[in-house]
């Protein structure tokens, strides 16, 4: 080890100007954070502020917005947008776009529904079939983009049109397939038993705490860059408050008429979203594949020179996006209880792109996290939810959502410019 020295007076070889005292105190961390914000590295901050604003506005305008019933509803509505956005993060990371993700989800859900209805397949097999359809679509897009070098914008625009043919052919115009499989439909309309929900919440919080503390110990023991202990503890406390608060909220009986019915527990969608979030966060931040995704998004030529197979990375990103789109299509079908030829062909895609970008994923590639999709997805889902309560006409909803997407993209572009100026 070359750097340990508590005597800053002697700038030994390799004493990286401020490594040894890096963010030892909370104050240092706070200063670092402010500096990064100033430099244009905003992360999810705009989305969190936006969410707070939306919550304040809607809860003052309508007394039923903040009810547990509506909050549970919001979670379920956000599910499919979040999952679609999480898949899109992978292509956005590479500076690409997938305009066909929405309809890929529709086509996949259509296949799953047909397998359930016409062929009596087990729900798990039918789900896998749907996801495989998504993966194949992604493979085709990725291959066209990588091997022929067609811009992804054009390839996926073509797929956006062509893929709508699948459900139209399979279902017929004007028709629809019911989606009432016990388990799949249950994702949206059933809840995790209250006890199981609490156990899961405790496990997640303890798991996060153990990991964060272990990381802190192993890094500080070796004198590597690490966060100060108080900050680690604050992060754990904040997570615990959010997770336990949400669990408590969703564990209360939220039936509009609590004496007649008992609706309580976490909607099944939420564990699905959390599992996907944990999985993809792990892939992005802890594996070579994830590292290579960021590298290709940051500088594809540098990645190629480092021996990374850029083609493979690019194709995988499209496969992941379309497979996640399939999952999202299933969640959407689960929510509405049916699949129709128009499924996924509406605003789903733009909502999801908006969600990812609002959450902090850059349209220019190289920046993005799975978590961005969750935070951004909540913002996007809150808008129609709140406006719906206020009985606003649909056009208002479109206007507001479009405005929010534009705002998010502007924040992205401006902060990118500040980043290159400030070099953060």
């Amino acid at each position, binding site marked *: 080890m*070359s750097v340990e020295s508590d005597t800053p007076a002697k700038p030994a070889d390799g004493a990286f100007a401020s490594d040894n005292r890096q963010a030892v105190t909370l104050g240092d961390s706070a200063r670092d954070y402010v500096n990064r914000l100033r430099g244009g590295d905003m992360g999810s901050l705009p989305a969190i502020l936006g969410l707070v604003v939306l919550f304040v506005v809607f809860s003052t305008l309508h007394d039923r917005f903040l009810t547990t019933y509506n909050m549970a509803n919001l979670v379920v509505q956000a599910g499919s947008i979040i999952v679609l956005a999480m898949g899109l993060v992978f292509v956005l990371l590479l500076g690409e776009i997938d305009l066909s993700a929405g309809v890929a989800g529709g086509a996949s859900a259509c296949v799953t529904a047909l397998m359930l209805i016409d062929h009596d397949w087990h729900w798990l097999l039918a789900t896998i079939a749907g996801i495989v359809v998504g993966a194949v679509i992604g493979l085709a897009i990725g291959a066209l983009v990588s091997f022929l070098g067609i811009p992804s914008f054009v390839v996926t625009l073509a797929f956006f049109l062509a893929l709508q043919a699948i459900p139209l052919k399979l279902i017929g115009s004007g028709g629809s397939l019911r989606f009432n499989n016990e388990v799949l439909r249950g994702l949206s309309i059933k809840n995790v038993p209250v006890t199981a929900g609490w156990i899961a919440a405790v496990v997640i919080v303890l798991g996060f705490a153990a990991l964060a503390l272990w990381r802190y110990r192993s890094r500080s023991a070796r004198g590597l860059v690490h966060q100060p202990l108080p900050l680690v503890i604050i992060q754990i406390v904040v997570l615990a408050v959010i997770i336990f608060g949400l669990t408590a909220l969703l564990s209360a009986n939220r039936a509009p008429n609590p004496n007649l019915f008992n609706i309580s527990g976490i909607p099944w969608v939420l564990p699905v979203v959390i599992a996907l979030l944990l999985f993809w966060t792990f892939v992005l931040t802890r594996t*070579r594949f994830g590292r290579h995704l960021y590298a290709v*998004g940051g500088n594809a030529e*540098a990645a190629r020179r480092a021996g990374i197979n850029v083609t493979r990375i690019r194709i995988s990103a499209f496969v992941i996006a379309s497979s996640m789109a399939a999952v999202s299509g299933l969640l959407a079908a689960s929510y509405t209880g049916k699949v129709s030829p128009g499924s996924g062909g509406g605003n789903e895609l733009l909502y999801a792109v908006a969600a990812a970008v609002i959450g902090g994923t850059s349209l220019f590639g190289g920046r993005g996290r799975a978590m961005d999709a969750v935070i951004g997805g909540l913002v996007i889902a809150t808008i129609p939810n709140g406006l719906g309560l206020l009985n606003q006409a649909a056009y208002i909803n479109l206007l507001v959502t479009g405005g929010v997407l534009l705002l998010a993209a502007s924040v992205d572009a401006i902060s990118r410019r500040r980043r290159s100026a400030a070099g953060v």
Partner: protein
Amino acid sequence: MAQPLLELRGVNKSFGVAHVLHDVDFAVYPGQVTALVGDNGAGKSTLVKIIAGIYGRDTGDYLFDGQSVNVHGPRDVAALGVEVVYQDLALCENLDIVENMFLGREETKGITLDEVAMESRARETLASLSVRTVKSVRQSVSSLSGGQRQTVAIAKAVLWNSKVVLLDEPTAALGVAQTRQVLDLVRRLADRGLGVVLISHNMGDVMEVADRVTALYLGRVAADVHVEEVTHGRIVELITAGRSGDLGIAENPATATV
């Protein structure tokens, strides 16, 4: 003379109709610094990229340790123990220093990245290069100055206990002190027995650290000589005119107009 560590024989390379390298022979000897000089556009970077496996060659042989080898990409070349610092650096700005240094060759524990091991090794290497100006090894590359990036790119190349290191204008962006450090490093690497290739437009630097000089003129090798055999002025002539006294490309009407 000892056998070259790395050798190219009769290499030709065209980009479409532009014939950039003509029958180039190039050799790198262990323990020696070979300076590759030539005017802008002479083909130095192209030659480096061919050695690095980024460009294929149209004709010609690639020998390593006297054996003919097949290289199909950067990975094969890295496996031979050849590292390159590119003129345009090739760093990912969105990644931090450690991530850049290990790019494509990350250390893992099971399926997860071994950040602790990578950060420790990166630190040791940077410390051995006496890098003092970098604030933290976890700083993103976009926040570094040109010279600091240069140092990271060099550190990335020396991290791997390689046998051959090629540096394409490594001092172009550096201040006086940093240039001094890089030149010392170049010398130290060669003294350790590595084959080092230094591309530079600064003849002072070349005369100081190089053992051999290979001059390219319009994609042809004009001279491949010991540094003691030439003077500053003769190298400049070789670079600008392709010949100098008895050295250089024979006056040939067929090629004189290239």
